[in-house]
């Protein structure tokens, strides 16, 4: 910084530095604060922007700087109340400004300057965070000091004089923060980590459902049609195309893909695809209509899976889909008059109902129920609240 100023004014760097040190000592810290401010505002030699201009976008850094400065001011006020008024009046404001400025510099300075600050601050406890035992020792002594000072102020305070006991209370609170602060921080960090893990698990489940709906279903179909090479080639080709567009273009398989598609159009699409792939008639009836959002796409993906299941396992000649769009929710029913099944007897590795239908619905705030009677058929009822997308997003 001194170099920058020297370059601008044309004086020798060393001379500028000596002047600064002397001025700092004589002015009681005011010049130090000015130095820090200049460091912030004047672009370094060769840099095109000052640190301050970069710091404007650093919301956390500004908050941190303001918080530290405020804390310091509180401490200084308490000090002056306790009788050490000289501390507050002479050192106080420059100190607060210097600290806030240094925080901003530390967070936004170019890498080499950060390195330098870190090296200078290295011996200070707490900042480097490497020597654990030393850090604990520093914390304990700081706590004792704050607690002792606070209790002293509380006990010796005059009943009529409100400020002294108040300062004591603040000191005790500060002691508590010093003791428990790191623990609170850790809890907050753990929460973040846990939430990330849950999001990852959900993504994985969604992916498993997608793979099941597309790749595994196709493989099952290929096994069934092993004696029809033309069909097998066609299925494999279609699956390859779908998988490619998922992996490389991000178009999820089984999803209704394009935007602007509606519930009724999506149901028609399911009807056509399932009829074409499996050769079983699908009767589709829709009442009302609305545009698809993520949740309704999930509803349709679940409906598609339920329909494919019915076509594959029920043995029924016709599968009926009924979808009704209401102001608050969309309901969808997939019904067959096939052989029905025993939900308890479905092997665990058959993920269709459990993962693709139930989990897919509940992940997005919807619900799925299956009613099945052996020999009479099966009905899968799906309900998805409308406008749940916004709620879901605001929670995440």
């Amino acid at each position, binding site marked *: 910084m001194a170099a920058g100023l020297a370059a601008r004014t044309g004086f020798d760097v060393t001379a500028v530095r000596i002047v600064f040190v002397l001025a700092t000592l004589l002015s009681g810290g005011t010049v130090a604060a000015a130095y820090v401010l200049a460091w912030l505002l004047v672009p370094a030699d060769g840099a095109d922007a000052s640190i301050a201009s970069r710091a404007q976008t650093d919301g956390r850094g500004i908050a941190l700087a303001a918080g530290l400065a405020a804390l310091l001011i509180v401490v200084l006020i308490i000090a002056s109340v306790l009788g050490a008024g000289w501390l507050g009046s002479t050192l106080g404001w420059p100190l607060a400004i210097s600290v806030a400025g240094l925080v901003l510099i530390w967070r936004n300075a170019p890498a080499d300057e950060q390195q330098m600050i870190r090296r200078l601050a290295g011996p200070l406890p707490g900042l480097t965070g490497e020597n654990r035992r030393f850090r604990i020792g520093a914390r304990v002594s700081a706590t004792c000091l704050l607690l002792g000072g606070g209790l002293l102020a509380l006990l010796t305070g005059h009943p009529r004089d409100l400020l002294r006991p108040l300062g004591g209370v603040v000191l005790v609170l500060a002691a508590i923060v010093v003791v428990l602060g790191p623990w609170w921080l850790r809890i907050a960090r753990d929460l973040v980590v846990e939430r990330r893990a849950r999001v990852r698990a959900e993504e994985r489940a969604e992916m498993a459902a997608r793979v099941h709906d597309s790749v595994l279903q196709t493989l099952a179909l290929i096994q069934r049609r092993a004696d029809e090479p033309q069909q097998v080639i066609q299925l494999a080709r279609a699956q390859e195309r779908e998988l490619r567009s998922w992996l490389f273009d991000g178009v999820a398989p089984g999803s209704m893909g394009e935007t602007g598609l509606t519930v009724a159009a999506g149901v028609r699409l399911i009807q056509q695809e399932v009829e074409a792939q499996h050769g079983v*008639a699908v009767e589709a009836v829709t009442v009302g209509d609305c545009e698809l959002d993520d949740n309704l796409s999930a509803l349709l993906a679940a409906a598609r899976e339920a329909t494919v299941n019915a076509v594959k396992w029920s043995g029924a000649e016709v599968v009926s889909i*009924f979808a009704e769009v209401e102001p608050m929710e969309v309901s969808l029913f997939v019904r067959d008059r096939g052989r029905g099944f025993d939900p308890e007897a479905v092997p665990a590795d058959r993920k269709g109902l459990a993962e693709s239908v139930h989990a897919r619905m509940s992940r997005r705030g919807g619900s799925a129920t299956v009613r099945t009677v052996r020999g009479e058929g099966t009905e899968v009822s799906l309900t998805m609240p409308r406008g749940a997308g916004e709620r879901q997003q605001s929670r995440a």
Partner: protein
Amino acid sequence: MSAPGARAPDGGRPRVFIVDDHGLFRTGVRSELGDQVEVVGEAGDVEPAIALISESLPDVVLLDVHLPGGGGQAVVTAMKATHPQVRFLALSASDAPQDVIAVIRAGARGYVTKTISGAELVDAVRRVAVGDSVFSPRLAGFVLDAFAALSPASADRPSFDPELDQLTPREREVLRLIARGYTYKEIARELYISIKTVESHVSSVLRKLQLSTRHQLTQWAAERRLT
């Protein structure tokens, strides 16, 4: 009204007339119906259909919604004026809602799709023959849609007649179950009511559909075509 599968008015097999412009389809329906009904004639166009029906006076006319020369609607309208006792059951592959609603509003007692099985078709004919109505899932869906579009909030209030222009919650429930593919028997079991009650709900819906004077009911179809 009487129970499903009830016998025709004269105690024998219902007398059926088939109107469809595809000869192959007429033959198919004839063989599906088998000897459960008596097929008294068939026609492939509006004019001959009106003439032949007036002559043979069947119990039930199986009517294609799409007919050259005015559609099934024209046949129903013409017959209603001269022979109101002839009943119509619309039978079709896949139609626009507005055409189906138009045929029903002209006076047909029901609508079934061509995917219907032979036994179900015979049952439907029998029911229409004794004056009941027959709703396929698709028709139930159309009707729910039409009346949803007619919700009181969006309506022209002056002509609003809650008796005719609105479905009761129970009627809606019945229609929903029909749309889901339930038979009358299954609906009765589901709602803990008798089959007769289910039938009377359906007939009441049909009556509302035919008598409601609100022009939105026809307008609705036009709007839907756009979507």
